[in-house]
C-alpha cells in the first residue's frame, strides 16, 4: 500500500472540489489508479486520451508509481 498525491486539472477537477488530494492505492500502477478515480468521478475520457505526469514530468503509463509521487492525469490540451 502506497500513498500518492493526485492533482486535478480542467474538467477533471470537480467544480468546487480540491485541486490536489492524497490517495492510497494497493497497486503502484497508474492505469489502475486512473480507472479507480475514473469510476469515482465519472471522467469521460478513456486512458488513451489522457497524458500522465509524475513529479512534474510527462511519462509513459508504464512508469511505476512510488510513495509520495505527485500524479496528474492530463485531459486533451486546448491552449493556443
Amino acid at each position: 500500500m502506497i500513498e500518492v498525491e493526485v492533482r486535478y486539472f480542467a474538467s477533471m477537477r470537480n467544480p468546487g472540489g480540491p485541486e490536489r488530494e492524497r490517495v492510497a492505492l494497493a497497486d503502484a500502477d497508474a492505469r489502475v489508479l486512473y480507472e479507480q478515480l475514473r469510476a469515482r468521478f465519472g471522467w469521460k475520457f478513456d486512458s488513451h486520451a489522457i497524458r500522465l505526469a509524475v513529479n512534474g514530468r510527462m511519462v509513459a503509463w508504464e512508469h511505476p508509481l512510488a510513495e509520495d509521487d505527485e500524479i496528474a492525469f492530463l485531459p486533451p490540451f486546448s491552449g493556443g
Partner: protein
Amino acid sequence: MPLRFELTADPIDPAVLRERIEDLDCGAAVIFEGRVRRHNRGRSVDHIVYEAFASVAVPEGLAVAEETARLHDVTRVLIVHRIGKVVLGELAVWVGVTSIHRDLAFQACAFAIASLKARVPIWKHEHYADGGPEWLHPLP
C-alpha cells in the same frame, strides 16, 4: 540561443515582445497572435479562463521553442501564453520567430504554435454570454 517560453497572468504586449526577437543578422520575422474571438462553435464568447499545469507547461513550452529552432534554422523563438481570465480581443498566445530565410520563419512559427497546442498542458475554460462555461478538450 535566445529561445524562451513564458506563462503570464498579465496582458500580453506585442510591442514589447517583438523587440525581444530582434536580430540584426536576420531579415525575416514571423509572428502568430492567437486572440480571443467573439464566437466559437456557434456560441457567443464572453471571456476565457486559461489554466496551465505550470511545472510541466514551462519545460514543455521551452522544449517546443528548442525543437522549433533545431528543425527550422531560426535564431530567436519566443512563445508567451496568457493564463487566467482573458477577455474578448485580448491575446491568448504570442509566438515570434526570426530567421535569415522567410520560408523557414513561416514554417517555424506554424510548427511552434501547432506543437504548443499538441504538447503543452494548458486548458481553455470558455465562458459564454448565454449558459455556463465549458472546458475545451479537443481530441487529437
